[in-house]
Every structure is written in structure tokens, then in C-alpha cells.
């Protein structure tokens, strides 16, 4: 179902799709559930649920601190599966796990994919697992086996050779980082983004998601003709950080509603 659900979500495209992001257990497990439901209700087309990890290499300070806080709260990998199971039965949009490879590896690659599927995940984003290691680690083959999308992550410095390698195994969509760097909301998109995304389009037959630094409606407007999905990560966490506990839901809701373009 994972693959179909993602495909369906992109087909009949009238507007750019929105993938929002949450760090599981930040600011608490309860909030993760509430916010995910609220996102689904207010126009998110996908949600990326990040399993907190002690050493999140691809993340900037915002998500890193959220991971740190979630782990301090005592969030465990088994909580992530519980939340996935609960949410997938209550929302109709596709949910994806974002996890660093050590989390998957330590759990057992096969078991992780199997349990993710059982809990209703549509796909996995594992940013620190290069395709080159597939023969050793078997992440892609296990995703295939359990019908999970294995979302490939590419960046502006990916060589043509590498884009080709990623394209060969891509499923669901490809996650293109908007700039060469780490996660974190930015004010401006890079001017070279258009040329880069056009190149990506040549290599990939799957839809293109763009993330890293996306935080404003203007960004989505710029991305709309160039890509299929915009990913909002750190920007939501910034909203949460700036809110009082009582206003978090309201503030996140307003933030997402203000982002939407037709």
C-alpha cells in the first residue's frame, strides 16, 4: 500500500504537495500525535516522522536540539513504532519514517522494515545510507520486500554518476536538498536551484521533493513549477519553539495554513 498511497497523493496534481516534518517525542509524544493529526487535517500531504538520534549528522541546530530534547524525554525507538501505528490508523495521508542508519541497523534492517510496514509507514528516509553500501546493508532490498518506499536523498553536489545510481533504485519520490548543507530554515532559496532541479528531473522518473531550508510561502511558490513536493522541517520546529505550550497547536495550524498555495 505504501507505494500506491504515495503515488496517489501526487497524481491529480493541482498544487505543489506539502510534506511536513516532526521529531518524534518533541516536544512530547503527546504533541507528536496531536500535531501530526492537525497537520493532516490542515493540508499536509505527507508527514515525515523523524526518529530522534544522538548524532544526527545531516541536521542543523534546530532539529538537532529537538532530537536531544526528545531523547532526554526518554523517547525510544519502540515509541516511534507505536506512534506510527496509532497515527496511520487515524490519518489518511502517507507517513514516512526519517531515521539515521544506526537506528535502523541496531534494530535490525529487516525487522525495522517489516515493523515499519506493519505499523503503516509508507516509506523510509535514511539520509546517511549511500546506495554504494546496498550489497553490505540490504536496506533497499528490504524496503522492496516489505513494499516501503526507499526515499533517496540527493544534493546539489551529487555528480551525474551518482544521480544515475540513485535514480536506478529510487521509489516513491526523490528527496533533493535545496542546498548543499544541513537542515535549517533559511530566508532565501539559492539562485542555482532551478538549474539543479531541472537536471534532477532529467535523471529521475519519480516525483521530486525539495527540502532543507524551506520555510515560507514564497519558497513554495518558487518551487511549484520545479518540483512536486515541498518539505517543511525546521521551520515548524521553530514555530513550536517560539510558542507557549498552550498555543503550539494553534500556531502550527496557522503556520501551515499560511503556507498553502493554490
Amino acid at each position, binding site marked *: 500500500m505504501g507505494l500506491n498511497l504515495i503515488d496517489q497523493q501526487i497524481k491529480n496534481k493541482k498544487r505543489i504537495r506539502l510534506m511536513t516534518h516532526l521529531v518524534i517525542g518533541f516536544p512530547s509524544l503527546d504533541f507528536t500525535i496531536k500535531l501530526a493529526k492537525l497537520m493532516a487535517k490542515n493540508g499536509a500531504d505527507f508527514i515525515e516522522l523523524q526518529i530522534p*538520534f*544522538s*548524532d544526527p*549528522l*545531516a541536521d*542543523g*541546530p534546530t532539529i*538537532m*536540539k529537538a532530537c*536531544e530534547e526528545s*531523547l532526554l524525554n526518554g523517547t*525510544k*525507538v519502540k515509541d516511534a513504532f507505536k506512534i506510527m501505528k496509532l497515527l496511520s490508523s487515524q490519518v489518511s495521508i502517507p507517513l514516512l519514517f526519517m531515521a539515521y*542508519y*544506526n*537506528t535502523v*541497523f*541496531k*534494530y535490525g534492517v529487516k525487522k525495522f522494515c517489516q515493523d515499519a510496514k506493519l505499523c503503516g509507514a509508507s516509506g523510509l528516509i535514511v*539520509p*546517511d545510507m*549511500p546506495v*554504494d553500501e546496498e550489497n553490505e*546493508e540490504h536496506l533497499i532490498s528490504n524496503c522492496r520486500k516489505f513494499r516501503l518506499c526507499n526515499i533517496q*536523498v540527493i*544534493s546539489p*553536489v*551529487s*555528480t551525474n554518476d*551518482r544521480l544515475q545510481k540513485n535514480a536506478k533504485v529510487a521509489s516513491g519520490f526523490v528527496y533533493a*536538498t535545496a542546498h*548543499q*548543507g*544541513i537542515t535549517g530554515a533559511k530566508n532565501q532559496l539559492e539562485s542555482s536551484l532551478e538549474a539543479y532541479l531541472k537536471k534532477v528531473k532529467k535523471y529521475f522518473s519519480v516525483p521530486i521533493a525539495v527540502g532543507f531550508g524551506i520555510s515560507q510561502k514564497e519558497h513554495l511558490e518558487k518551487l511549484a513549477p520545479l518540483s512536486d513536493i515541498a518539505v517543511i522541517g525546521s521551520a515548524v520546529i521553530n514555530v513550536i519553539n517560539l510558542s507557549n505550550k498552550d498555543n503550539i497547536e494553534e500556531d502550527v495550524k496557522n503556520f501551515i495554513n499560511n503556507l498553502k498555495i493554490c
Partner: protein
Amino acid sequence: MLIPSLEELEKIYNNAKKDPSFKKEFNFLLKTFAGRPTPLTFAKNLSEKLGAARIYLKNEGLNHTGAHKITHCIGQAILAKRMGKKRLIAETGAGQHGLATATVAAKFGFSCTIFMGEIDIARQRPNVFLMEQLGATVIPVTFGNKTLKDAVNAAIKYWIENVKDTHYLLGSVVGPHPYPVMNCDFQSVVGKEIKLQLRKFEGKPPDYVIACVGGGSNAMGAFSAFLKDDVRLIGVEAGGKGNQVGENAIRFPFGSVGVVEGYKSYFLQNSDGNLQKTHSISAGLDYPGIGPQLSLLHDTKRVEFVNVKDKEVLSATRLLAQTEGIIPALESAHAVAFGIKLALKLPKEKIIVINLSGRGDKDIFILAKAFKDKKFMSFLKEYLKDV
């Protein structure tokens, strides 16, 4: 995201390996700048005092900047120049690798940024001062454990954002390929020197080679020449304050296999794969991972791993200072502490080589505090009054 840069580095390194002019430049700088070969010293007094095996010290502390780290820094700086990079970045724990990186940056004309955990900055301030005098910028890392592993994370993140003009001069045999292989190659000069030097003293190879193990660069350097010989190789880890989680950096047997910071090896981690806190009196050994080559040598039982506690390290430091006139770095004193214990169990004809990876100048503040040196403390107070 870093694969293109790693591939670029691998290519330039493979080319350099085949290129005699690289070897020539590397060896020339090792000799005329770093001060190689470093001496192998017979620890006559210590051996006699213990009345046991014959102990030799490979004094890497006599390298320029005070530790073995300068060797792989020179190697990588030449490669960075060949790649046309403008800036060197590095992580550092004890500050020795940061100091060596800042030094080659000054010598080669690179700008230089060093990432160092806030806790390590507080305990190794002399090296921070020296790095800054050399023109480097030292950036405190305030997240996570605020020690070496977090400095590695910070350096990698910075590198991801600045790959074009920056070379990440990683300071041990850890991280993604080609770093472990490359740094091991550069450091292998240490083992080769030991072999030649000991032959002159004893006419035969040692029975034991002992080295402390943080990431493993000095250990791999010393061990690599003896892997095929009938020599027992022993890596000494930081036993810290005790055997509880967070009290030490004992990867064997407390670690398990994981994939973190771009490499697969043993890590101190919990059942969810999150890295655990570590502790050591020496910042350079205070790290949850270990080089993949050493992990393999552990699994194949070619290298044995032991650990010693902070307290034993302090006693060994004092004993070596007073018997041999050498104050070792706290990291290296781990190897000394185990070497002493081992020697006591061995007959007199056995030969032990201890790799003294660095000298102890950087540790005077830690030592003065640990030895409760009142005169040093009142000196500090007076000095502060004056400034």
C-alpha cells in the same frame, strides 16, 4: 552528501601513493619540520626498578607540536594543496590534533577552523591558546556530550556546507573511507621506525607493542609494521572512573557494532543505537567509537584490548617522569600504566615497546589539580591578580 568529496579525496590520495614526488615531499617535511625519526629510548631505570621485562619507549612526544598527530596532518595538508583547497578544518579532543592541524595550516598557507567540545576547551586550554596563536579559529561545540564525538559531528556538518574550498583534516583512523586507510598509511612510519631502531638495540623484534587507543591512529601506526610478526599487540583503552555507562570509554567489551559518523565499527551505544556518554581523564581517549581496522583486528584476535583507570594513569605519569625524565601525555600514560603492569608479570628477557604518543606539557593544569599541587594553585591565583 559528502560522497563526492570523499571520492575526490580518495582519488587524489591514490594518485599520491603512486607519485614519488609526494613521498619525497612528505618524507622531507617529516624530517625537517616534524622532527622524524623520533627516538626509541631504552627505559633503563624503569625496567630496573620494576626488575622485570625490558621496556622501550617510542617517544612520539618529541614530534613538533608534541604528538604523533603532526604526521598525518602533513600528509593530508599536501593532499589538500593538491586538491586546491583553501581551508583546513579539524575536530580535536586533547587539542593535539587541532594544534598539529593549525600548525600545518600556517606552514602551508591555509586558513584554519578547529572544532572542539566545550568541555575539552575547558580542560585543554593551553592547546586552545596555541592554536589561536597559530592563526586558527577555535569553535566551541556546545551540543551533545561537548567532547570529541560532538566535535567530529560539528566538523562534518561544517564540511557538508563548505565542501568546495575546504578539506576536512580528520585526525584519527576513524570516519568514512578513505580516512582510516589514509591516516594509517601516514602513521605507519612509526612502526617502521620502531622496527629499525629496536633492531639496533636488541637485534630482534619486540615481544609486545603497547599503545593507547582513542580513535586508534597512534596504535595503528605502531602496530602496522608488526601485524605479520610474532609480536603481541595491545591496545589500551580509557578505563576512566569505573565500569558503569558514562564512566569510561571501553569499547571492548562494552561496545557493539554500529554505523555512525560515516563508518561501521564498534561504538558505545544503547539498545536504540544512540551513542552513550563517555569519560576519561584524557580528552583524546574520551570517544565512543574506534577505528574500523582496529575493530577487525579485535575480531580476528590479532590485537588484544585492555584498559586502565584514571588513577593508574596518574601514578604511571609520575613514575615515568621520575624514573625516565619523560612526562607523557595523559593519553599515552594509559599505555605506560598497562606496560608497567605487564612488565611485572614477565621474565627479564622479554621486550616491551610502549608507544608514547605525546608529551604531557598540555596536561599541566589537569596534573596540578589531580596531584593537588598547592603551589601551582597559589601561582594561578597570584597570576590572575596580576592580570
